[in-house]
């Protein structure tokens, strides 16, 4: 009796599964989250506009750099410096997209590796014959190199201008500045063009859940950037979290001194905006990690993450503008900021990743 009953239960489960499958098909009741439209929103309203915004600032900086090196004076220096800062700020919005051409070219490694290798820079300038595409020169170019060349080579502006005007190596310095700018600009153009041509459609059509699909790579890159590029590089490493002693020289924009905090805040805002699906231009939002979490009924993760970003921001706001100085005067404030940033790593890497059930690695798992 019970045997028969169970057979019937099994059979009905089986039939149930199959028949429901079919009926779902016929009435095409599709209530799942549309990952395609999320990828479209992220690429069309955030990633590509961010690159466009950055590329525009990049061009302005390149031109300002050329003007400065052609006729070095206080005016052109000021122009160059302010365009450098503007570009550097928008850079914080694109560094996290290490996907497609950016990944292939190791774009960010040519744009923003710090601390700068000053002796490499000086050797390149004096000896010439350098190859900026060489991996060994990754820490001798990009924003950190310009930071040094705009603020670090002299204590006062008139001496600095003289380095480019009348100094023994004036033309060599000018050439190096322009070489860096050209390198940064052409890499940026290459990445942007690739996004706008073929890559966009590849990106938004790769919706599957495999280790190489857009969504999985994007989520992993996003978390990796937050953990490494933001949390570790900008705060953790200078605060000595990973070393026996604090390393105040390892802050971003070390030579400019007073903007390292501003850049962290920009980067954190960029991360949060991306998480929320907020468009680069304007205030509207679209499908994003946030709405995906809400679809999966994980409002709790969203709220915790949002609150944690805010908690981190509060701690960062407590820091002085020059993080290097902050490390030296009161490093405990730095480690507190790090701790709050770290708590969000757990939420993103453990809770969000679990909710998304993202495939990271292809190895056999258990089954019955």
């Amino acid at each position: 009796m019970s045997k028969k009953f169970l057979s019937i239960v099994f059979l009905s489960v089986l039939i149930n599964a199959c028949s429901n499958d079919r009926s779902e098909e016929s009435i095409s009741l599709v209530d799942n989250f549309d990952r395609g439209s999320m990828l479209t929103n992220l690429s069309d309203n955030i990633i590509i506009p961010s690159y466009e915004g950055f590329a525009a600032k990049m061009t302005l900086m390149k031109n300002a750099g050329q003007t400065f090196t052609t006729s070095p004076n206080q005016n052109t220096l000021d122009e160059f410096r302010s365009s450098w800062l503007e570009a550097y700020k928008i850079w914080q919005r694109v560094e996290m997209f290490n996907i497609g051409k950016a990944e292939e070219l190791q774009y960010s490694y040519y744009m923003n590796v710090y601390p700068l290798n000053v002796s490499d820079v000086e050797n390149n300038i004096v000896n010439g014959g350098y190859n900026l595409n060489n991996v060994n020169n990754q820490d001798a170019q990009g924003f950190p190199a310009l930071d040094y060349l705009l603020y670090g080579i002299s204590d006062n502006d008139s001496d600095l201008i003289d380095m480019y005007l009348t100094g023994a190596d004036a033309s060599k310095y000018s050439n190096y500045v322009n070489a860096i700018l050209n390198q940064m600009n052409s890499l940026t153009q290459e990445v942007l063009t690739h996004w706008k041509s073929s890559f966009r459609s590849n990106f938004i059509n790769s919706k599957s859940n495999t280790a190489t699909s857009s969504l999985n790579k994007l989520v992993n890159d996003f978390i990796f950037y937050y953990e490494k590029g933001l949390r570790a590089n900008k705060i953790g490493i200078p605060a000595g979290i990973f070393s026996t002693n604090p390393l105040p020289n390892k802050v971003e924009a070390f030579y400019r001194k007073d903007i390292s905090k501003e850049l962290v805040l920009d980067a954190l805002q960029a991360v949060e905006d991306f998480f929320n699906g907020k468009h680069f231009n304007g205030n509207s939002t679209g499908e994003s990690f946030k709405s995906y979490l809400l679809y999966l009924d994980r409002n709790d993760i969203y709220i915790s993450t949002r609150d944690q970003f805010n908690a981190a921001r509060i701690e960062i706001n407590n820091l002085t503008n020059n993080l290097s100085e902050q490390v030296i005067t009161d490093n405990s404030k730095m480690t507190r900021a790090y701790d709050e940033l770290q708590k969000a790593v757990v939420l993103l890497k453990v809770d969000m990743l679990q909710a998304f059930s993202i495939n990271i690695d292809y190895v056999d798992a258990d089954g019955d």
Partner: protein
Amino acid sequence: MITKYFNKHTDAKPLVVFRIFFGVMMFISMVRFWVNGWVDKLYIKPTFFFSYYGFEWIKPIGNYTYLIFIICALASIFVAIGFKYRIAIIIFFLSFTYIELMDKTTYLNHYYFVSVLSFLLIFLPANARFSVDSFLNKKQYNQIPRWTIDSLKLLVSIVYFYAGLAKLNSDWLLRAMPLKIWLPSKYDLPLIGNNLMQQDWFYYAMSWGGAIYDLMIPFLLLFRKTRFFAFILVLFFHIFTRVLFPIGMFPYIMIVSSLLFFDATIHTKIIHWIKKITFITVTKFEEVKKYQYTNSVKKITTSVVIIFFMVQLLFPWRYLLYPGELFWTEEGYRFSWRVMLMEKAGAANFKIVDSVSNSSFYVQNSDFLTSFQEKQMSFQPDFILEYAHYLGDHFASQGHQNIEVYVDSYVALNGRMSQPYINSTVDLYKVKTSIFHKDWIVPFTSDIKIKGL
């Protein structure tokens, strides 16, 4: 009665067919593992390996690790063709188990199943007929002791039934966890990905169906009347799970195992079919009616098998000896047929402290572990402890002094928010590895309790 049972005989063919399929599948497994580059990725590339308690001496042996895989693959061919069977299956058991013991990171219930299965096969006359051994001896056995095939059936039944018992918990039945996490992410499956896989009721149906399936399938296979229906279920279930999850060769092993429950007519057909596709011509052998163990061998064999099954039946219950939530502490979790019960993830950051100067720094796990190892380490206490000791030793060898190792760790279990996992004030470098309760795990405090077996 027991002696009477042990003197009963049955047709040898189901065991013989099982031997062939098992050998072939294991060979494919080994080749697949190699071709996927997993030998290199899992056993050559990493600099550190997680050991099982008491088996710390078993490690990969550099490039010679490939040799173990070659030995294992060759042994499985020998098993399949039944050539020097007893030695072949012993070598297979040893080499396969060695591979599994090399790094705890890759622990899978189905690898453990293969190990215990091959151990049992050492004591069974699976080369009784249709084997090179029987060809060379010019002798084939028609019947073998009945308990030999029954023991395999019992092992398969234990695996299913215990897997079913393990599913009788509130997370699985009342929250449909972890299927509720896994299935929606299968949105890219054709036909069912965008609808069925997104339905709440479906997660419950799968959870309950899976539990009932595991509990009932041994019985449905045992009774002749329900056997064919049961086999269809086995096919459906394992192929379906194969589609859903990356579970490698396991579904096929279970499908082949379920053939053991059928009587010999089907196996006669299978042997005919194998003969046909391999062009093996029938040679006239001396047909021996019954395979008999010699008395001394019989004594040893039966006692080993009885002890083996007592261990199999009791070992999964050892978790009852530990306090705390099993899914959280994982004390007694492995080797108990707890299959796909948890979606668990963690993050563990290790802090190396100089207890005298009080200076400290955090470790980048990627400097020492592969991403797969880091993932597994971050939510399993025994991994965390072993790694903490490794880190302590490593930094001691680099000249650091007065080393203490602490960990900040968080774990999320079956869709609960992440919670602190290991007591971050305990110096793990001073904690000894043991099989006793790990009181340095932060107790499971979620409001959503787990009730059940």
